[in-house]
């Protein structure tokens, strides 16, 4: 990895990339009348206008310094790839600014943007579909240079051959076709093409996900060598935390369209602060049989970005959901109650009798009488086979009353942390919050 100190004159300047409040919403309804819903009830006009919006990226801000690698990690569907595409203006943002070398890409005209792309390149996940099968390798690598009017024909050929060597291939591959190469080699060709215009910034979207581990290691090493050789800045997107830890200088963790934690790679991995980061890190199987069974697993699936949870978007799966302020119950009681809420929502038990269910989930009666009343009422609903009412009651009386549901936490630096570089979006780490215990 290139460290920033090798560019002392640049580290004083503005960051290479500064993204602020970047937002991308997709209209999910297609066609002229797609957003109209037909629901005849016999009384009113049977059509309602109800456009669905997928909030793929929502108010994301971060910076990337010259020469560093920022790792962007998150589960599938969290908006990583959309973020990359918006960053490169392959999709136009709904809102927000992207400053690249001081220039706002979101405001550039098409032609100005086209010329600017000389400095920003992208590597895609699938090395197969990102190469035209009817073009020779040489032509593929030369195409970006041609588009930007760089060098003459012989100069381009020479440059292509040099690049083939830089990325660990043979110059004589110049006249071959993509199908003659393996996945790892194709990804190298993609690299050579991206580097042909001498970019400053390369966005890599899951560049090694389709490759075997030994090939992945080769590509990761090549990426690091090229970064040193050409002074590149990377945005490395991956769902693989091991790869992110290996290649990144700083890491941004994304959940459902928002960044939840940003920080230096080692500190973030050694001491994750956001409950989501903690859960993500502890759910990876470690390649060491002697640390078996130390995983803790996050329940449930990622909610839909069409209708994300209010407040903190992670609250529906969060193991550290904050107790509603009006209730006075202990942590272990709160954990039991949350277990009950989850079980009712999933209908994962047989509702036979109130006392039996109470015993199964709670360790005696709750100290807070109001809480106990709600729980008893909910259990009675389940016994009466009114699961939906029980779920609704528990949601409105417990989950919805938590501070996590009421206000969305902002991505702020942590109190007590020496640097301002580390930022977390969680109420537990707000100005008055206390750090939560590691599980």
């Amino acid at each position, binding site marked *: 990895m290139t460290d920033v100190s090798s560019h002392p004159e640049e580290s004083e300047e503005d960051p290479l990339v500064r993204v602020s409040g970047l937002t991308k919403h997709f209209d999910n309804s297609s066609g002229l009348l797609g957003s109209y819903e037909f629901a005849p009830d016999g009384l009113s006009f049977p059509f309602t206008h109800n456009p669905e919006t997928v909030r793929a990226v929502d108010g994301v801000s971060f910076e990337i310094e010259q020469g560093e690698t920022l790792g962007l990690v998150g*589960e*599938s569907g969290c908006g990583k790839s959309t973020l990359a595409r918006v960053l490169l203006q392959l999709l136009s943002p709904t809102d927000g600014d992207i400053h690249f070398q001081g220039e706002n890409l979101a405001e550039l005209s098409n032609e100005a943007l086209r010329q600017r792309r000389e400095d920003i390149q992208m590597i895609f996940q699938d090395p197969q579909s990102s190469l035209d099968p009817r073009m020779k390798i040489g032509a593929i690598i030369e195409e970006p240079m041609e588009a930007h009017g760089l060098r003459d024909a012989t100069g381009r050929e020479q440059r292509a051959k040099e690049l083939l060597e830089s990325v*660990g*291939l*043979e110059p004589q591959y110049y006249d071959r076709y993509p*199908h*003659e*190469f*393996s996945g*790892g*080699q194709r990804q*190298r060709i993609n690299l050579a093409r991206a580097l042909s215009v001498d970019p400053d910034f390369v966005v890599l979207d899951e560049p090694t996900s389709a490759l*075997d*581990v*030994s*090939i*992945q*290691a*080769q590509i*990761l*090493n090549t990426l690091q060598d090229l970064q040193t050789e050409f002074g590149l800045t990377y945005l490395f997107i991956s*769902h693989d*935390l*091991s*790869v992110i*830890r*290996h*290649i990144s200088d700083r890491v941004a963790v994304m959940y459902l369209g928002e960044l939840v934690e940003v920080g230096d*790679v*080692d500190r973030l*991995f050694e001491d994750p602060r956001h409950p989501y980061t903690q*859960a*993500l*890190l502890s*759910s*990876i*199987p*470690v*390649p*060491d*049989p*002697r*640390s*078996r069974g130390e*995983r803790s*697993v*996050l*329940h449930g*699936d990622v909610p839909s970005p069409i209708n994300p949870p209010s407040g903190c978007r992670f609250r529906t799966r969060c193991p550290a959901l904050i107790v509603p302020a009006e209730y006075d119950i202990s942590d272990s009681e709160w954990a039991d109650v949350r277990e009950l809420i989850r079980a009712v*929502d*999933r*209908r*994962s038990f047989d509702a036979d009798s109130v006392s039996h269910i109470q015993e199964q989930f709670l360790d005696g009666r709750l100290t807070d009488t109001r809480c106990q009343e709600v729980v008893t009422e909910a259990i009675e609903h389940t016994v009466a086979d009114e*699961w939906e009412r029980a779920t609704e009651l528990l949601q409105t009386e417990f989950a919805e009353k938590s501070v996590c549901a009421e206000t969305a936490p902002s991505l702020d630096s942590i109190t007590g942390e020496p640097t301002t570089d580390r930022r977390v979006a969680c109420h537990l780490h707000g100005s008055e919050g206390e750090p939560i215990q590691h599980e």
Partner: protein
Amino acid sequence: MSDTPLLKVENLKTQFFTEAGTVRAVDGVSFTVERGEIVGLVGESGAGKSVAVRSILRLIDSPGHIVGGEITFDGKTVVGFEDEPGTDGEPTRREEMLTNTEMRSQIRGSEIALIFQDPMESLNPVFTVGGQLRELIELNRGLSKQAARDRAIEILREVGIPQPAERFDDYPHQFSGGMRQRVLIAMALGCEPKLIVADEPTTALDVTVEGQILDLVYDLQDKYDASFLWVTHDMGIVAEICDRVNVMYLGEVVERASVDDLFYNPQHPYTEALLNSIPRPDQSTEDLQPLEGAMPEPINPPSGCRFHDRCPEAREVCQRTHPDLRTVTEAGQYAACLKHDAFEAAYETSRPLTDESPAAGGDRRE
């Protein structure tokens, strides 16, 4: 319970007869699965893992054929050939080898279940999830329609599908990837098989979902006492769930060890290289030491040891002598590498080959 292993694969050979030549996808593979055990089958893509497990279920389609070896499962002969080939040169099936109908009625689904990587491909999109599960239980367990439905809902709840009675009538596309994989596990369990063969079942899933599935497998193994043959390329999963591991390279098993020995005392250079090429989530890795080049095609494997052209420890003798799998440590670890004394191959006195290794991404065509 008897002393014989639940599944015994001996010298299995599966070949694909293509226009370009014979692809020896699985070439003399042997391994066993004991009762109640999770056995891993590890290797990179193209190593022959999937062909090996499909051979166990006799799910090899033309132009592929099982041409040799013996597979016994729970006292039944799944694959077995006469010593002498028939008059046409083709191997002759032994009398006790199960017919295709017997495979279908006695083995597949009911005794050995298979979970594939892509749950969407394994579920029929035009039938409801519950209906597919119910049908399977009805056919294999001989229950009435209503009893099978009740059992199906019970299993769906057990594998962690929320609101199983309501989701019963949903179609596969209404489930998320993780949920679909749970449905497949439910289907595999539906007939309480003795062996579950899982072919990269978590590869398409996110880490948090993968963790959920692994936990589920643990719980279910406890409850049903099923054995697992787990195919994967992910060393993290191997470390997490397997009891014993077979490492495959180019159609052969090159190392067999208990999971602890494999990670802490690998005996084959390929295993070692695999372990050195993975970035770790739990510690910062300085430099990855990847293997050079890529795995050759099984259509024309290298002479001698198949790994010699990429092996950092290869010597001249490795080009000539093909190592079989032998016990190389007192702990009973197996490896197929000439550097071990068990082979008596004069490895020590042989000339090292390292200078001749091809450059990274060497000159190899697809």
